[in-house]
């Protein structure tokens, strides 16, 4: 459906995306994962025909995005990052307008009602968009992106800036859309991409640093695992030295904490050996008061650090 070969995009002298190649097949759900400024949005802007690539070739649905921009754009439903909406229109008016500029001629009203049902906007049909909450604006944005039944759905950070309950609902909604469309979404939240997408492209500094399934990616990344313990110090035992003596511990560092009662440590261990249990047993055996022990998920920064230093 989408083929990108050796695509670069420069803003002035600054390369936002550098020599990126990948292709996306029909029916795939692909997540673009990367920190802010990695080039996710730029890649999407090029795919949607908003801005042409500086170098390289991009085809969407078999049409070149520069030479056959018009045909390519017809295949796409796009939800830009900041969810652009006309604040003085009602939800229904907005959807009607979007449907007609996207080239729909017949059955607009019927389709608009359908999308309103899908996105759960029934009660807000005739409400002016300016009066909607952020979550419902997001839904309206999603509704406009699917109204013309596009083959390809491109969403730029679709769950940013809405409350946690709405995030879950929006994710479910997007997940349900994945079945019928080729879906591409960008995010800087790892769990979001892993729940929705079957394939993850990790972008960092304008380059693709990984292209894999979410499972493979996390297996590959989690050669080590990190946990945090908080303890009441036993003066007879040097906790750090005790931990360093264990063969499964890679690194220990003490964490500055305002709470004087408990001391916190960040412990990096080899993965898949049940490190939490072993640490807990060690602490109890040495008569140290265990206050808290939890394993920390990898942060996005750590993932990029690992991927880029591989």
């Amino acid at each position, binding site marked *: 459906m989408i083929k990108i070969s050796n695509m670069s995009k420069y*803003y002035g002298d600054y390369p936002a995306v550098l020599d990126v190649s990948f292709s996306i097949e029909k029916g795939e759900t692909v997540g673009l994962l990367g920190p802010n400024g990695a080039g996710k949005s730029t890649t999407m*802007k090029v795919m*949607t*025909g*908003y*801005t*042409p690539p500086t170098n390289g070739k991009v085809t969407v649905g078999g049409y070149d995005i520069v030479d056959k921009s*018009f045909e390519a*754009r*017809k295949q*796409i439903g*796009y939800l*830009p990052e*900041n*969810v*652009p*909406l*006309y*604040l*003085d*229109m009602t939800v229904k*008016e907005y959807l009607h*307008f*979007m449907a*007609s*500029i*996207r*080239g729909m*001629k017949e059955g607009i009203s019927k389709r608009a009602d359908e999308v309103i049902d899908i996105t759960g906007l029934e009660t807000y049909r005739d409400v002016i968009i300016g009066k909607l909450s952020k979550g419902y604006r997001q839904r309206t944005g999603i509704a*406009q992106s699917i109204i013309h039944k596009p083959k390809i759905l491109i969403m730029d950070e679709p769950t940013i800036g809405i409350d946690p309950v709405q995030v879950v609902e929006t994710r479910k909604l997007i997940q349900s859309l994945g079945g019928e469309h080729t879906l591409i979404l960008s995010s800087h939240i790892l769990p979001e991409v892993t729940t929705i997408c079957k394939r993850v492209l990790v972008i960092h500094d304008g380059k693709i640093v990984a292209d894999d399934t979410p499972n493979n990616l996390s297996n590959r990344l989690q050669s080590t695992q990190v946990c945090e313990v908080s303890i009441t110090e036993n003066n007879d035992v040097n906790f750090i030295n005790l931990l360093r003596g264990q063969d499964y511990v890679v690194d220990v560092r003490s964490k500055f904490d305002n709470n004087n009662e408990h001391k916190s440590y960040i412990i990096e261990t080899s993965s898949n050996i049940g490190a939490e249990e072993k640490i807990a047993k060690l602490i109890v055996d040495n008569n140290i008061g265990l206050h808290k022990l939890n394993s920390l998920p990898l942060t996005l920064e750590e993932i990029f650090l690992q991927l880029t230093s591989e």
Partner: protein
Amino acid sequence: MNNIFTIFKKELTSYIKSPMAYIVAASFYTVTGFFFIASVSDAFSEASIRGFLAGAVFFLIFLSPALTMRLIAEEQKLGTMELLMTSPLKEHEIVIGKFFASFAIVLFMLLGTLFYPIILLIFGVPDLGPIFTGYLGLILYSSSTLSIGIFASSLSSNQLVSLVVGSGILTLLTFIDFVSERVTGFLGTILNELQLGGSFSVFDTSSFGIAEKGHFADFARGIISIYDIVFYLSISIIFLLSTILILETRRWR
């Protein structure tokens, strides 16, 4: 064509729903009303709409950009331009649709001013020829001012900038005779030809609307000159084309 109509309809609805069009129309009627009354209320004054034309031509310098400042700047600001540009729409369809929406508002506004000739017909014996050409000129003139306004609106995402730049260009083209009179030779001729409105002595009550120069002058006198019609149409087309060009090049940045 369909797309142009879709954009046109959307902008027209937006005008009807927002206060700006009403504010512009209200100030237009107030100002032109003053000028009209001032020009016909003296003893033995002429039964003509020249006073109204003088006021209209002068104040459209500010009112046209006020009407058009939203059109493109707001799309940039809201980010909805990204939706338009990623839809199967051509840039010229966007610009033309928007232009005709603002043009429709001005035509509607001018319809309301037919009140003035009706008053003349009731209380006097006006010459209908110059009234007709006056309106024809006004329609052509406003298409030029609106397209300059849209051009200004495409320059930034700030509506205030659009308003100031639009009025700035129009003011320059209206008072260019201050410069062109003092420049000789070929350059002087060119500058002279650029005079958009008539050089009305708007603040001189004794010579209301007696335009000697500028492309509006003949319309006010009751003359339909192809030359002036072509001038106004060219200005409209040039600025609309520039706007389209700006939208197209913005993609490549």
